[in-house]
């Protein structure tokens, strides 16, 4: 298609998300939200509830919705805001008559603006991936050596915080591209990136994909999931649906934990 050299383009952020129950679960305790704020920034929120805590499927939703509401009101987010999200979700639990252990969940929040600056804030584990403007792909997995990730709800009890701090003096940031590992603060962490065109967040369900013989490296499903050709509309849902329903069947893969994905993409549109 021939374009007039005077055509103007502008950078626009779009976002989408998806969550799906794992083979070994009866309820999906992952939840995701995505939205674009008034200033044109794309946001994604992902929460993974603890499968052994009651009502954590509800808790994951409450935390995600609280985060969204907080961000839309403030039009911003920082690590300090995790407490406000928790307080809001705790009130919701009280009104619903469900125990606060429902809030035993991770929370990952991602933001991508039209300048290509990405920020991710997290409490708990998960996988982050991004694509740079040069088309380079990067991924890192947040893992807790104890096997028990941080949950936002621990902040409600000094005793629980002490137990958590004792078993999780740090979390590990595994850089999947070069297999290096760094120790990061266990309570809450933040990542800031530049020159990003695509930002993706995953729950640790990405690390639960397996074949008949073995658990897969997260890079294998990740590279398939990021083969997105069209970023309009429900682009993450389409990719996940195709990957889970057709490509995984073809490979003989399945995921035993709940799986969720948030995608935020920076693209260009022509000015009308």
């Amino acid at each position: 298609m021939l374009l007039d050299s005077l055509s103007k383009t502008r950078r626009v952020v779009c976002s989408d998300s998806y969550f799906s129950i794992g083979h070994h679960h009866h309820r999906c305790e992952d939840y995701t939200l995505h939205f674009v704020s008034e200033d044109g920034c794309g946001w994604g929120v992902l929460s993974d509830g603890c499968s052994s805590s009651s009502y954590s499927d509800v808790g994951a939703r409450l935390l995600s919705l609280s985060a969204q509401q907080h961000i839309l009101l403030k039009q911003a987010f920082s690590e300090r805001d995790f407490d406000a999200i928790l307080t809001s979700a705790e009130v919701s639990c009280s009104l619903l008559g469900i125990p606060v252990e429902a809030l035993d969940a991770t929370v990952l929040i991602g933001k991508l603006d039209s300048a290509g600056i990405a920020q991710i804030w997290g409490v708990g584990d998960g996988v982050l991936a991004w694509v740079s403007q040069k088309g380079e792909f990067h991924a890192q997995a947040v893992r807790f050596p104890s096997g028990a990730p941080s949950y936002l709800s621990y902040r409600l009890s000094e005793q629980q915080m002490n137990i958590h701090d004792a078993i999780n003096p740090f979390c590990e940031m595994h850089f999947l591209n070069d297999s290096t590992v760094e120790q990061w603060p266990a309570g809450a962490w933040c990542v800031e990136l530049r020159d990003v065109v695509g930002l993706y967040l995953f729950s640790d369900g990405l690390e639960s994909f397996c074949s008949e013989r073995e658990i897969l490296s997260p890079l294998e499903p990740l590279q398939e999931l990021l083969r997105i050709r069209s970023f309009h509309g429900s682009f993450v849902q389409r990719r996940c649906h195709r990957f889970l329903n057709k490509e995984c069947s073809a490979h003989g893969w399945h995921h035993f934990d709940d799986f969720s994905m948030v995608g935020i993409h920076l693209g260009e549109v022509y000015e009308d």
Partner: protein
Amino acid sequence: MPLLTRSTLQSHTIPGSNFTFSAASIQGLSASEYTISTITIDTSGSVHPYIDEIEKAAQNIVTACRQSPRSENIMLRTVEFNSALVETHGFKTIPTCDPANYHKIFTAQGYTALYDATINSVESLGSYGRSLYDHDFDVNGIIFVITDGGDNNSKRGASDVKASIHRLRRSECLDSLLMILIGVNVQDASLSQSLERFSKEADFDHYIELADADPNTLAKLSRFVSRSISLQSRSLGTGNAPRLTF
């Protein structure tokens, strides 16, 4: 300079052929799955006596499809054929199809290039379906070929129609494909046999024969077409096509 908006249809050429078609830009599509449908309408000279009823039927199909709860997931392309093939409009979502645009659009003239028109419809739907599939959309298809006469002007034959339908079915980009041949105003036994033979040779799923083209019959045809499109849309994701009854 073309104005690039979400409502602009883009022109496509089918690889290896001179056939072209137009379709909504994939970048502007918001749903995750689509039923892509084509209505291929004979406008040869013989349909002149009831061309207005044919247009009315096309309008009614669009009107009914717009009322479907799945209308956002249905795309329609309308093609008229006689000695030549003219695309009334390319693949576009039902909410963007305006029944008023079907008023006085067909001109009854010329011969009946039935086989060429069917091949164009199949290959255009297959090409667009493949594009959608490659962009992670789930897709199924349904094609209606509506004619009042046998072929007398095509460059290709019934076996070529069968080959193109089989290629499309084998490509696996469509969840399912329904091919329906409809004979309108079939009052001649030899025409009936000819169309039935074509339907079998080309491997259509259904052949429906209408003995006349009066308003009631064409109204029933409209209801059948819109209902079939809606049923095919609801079966998307199952890997199967619905059972259709006229």
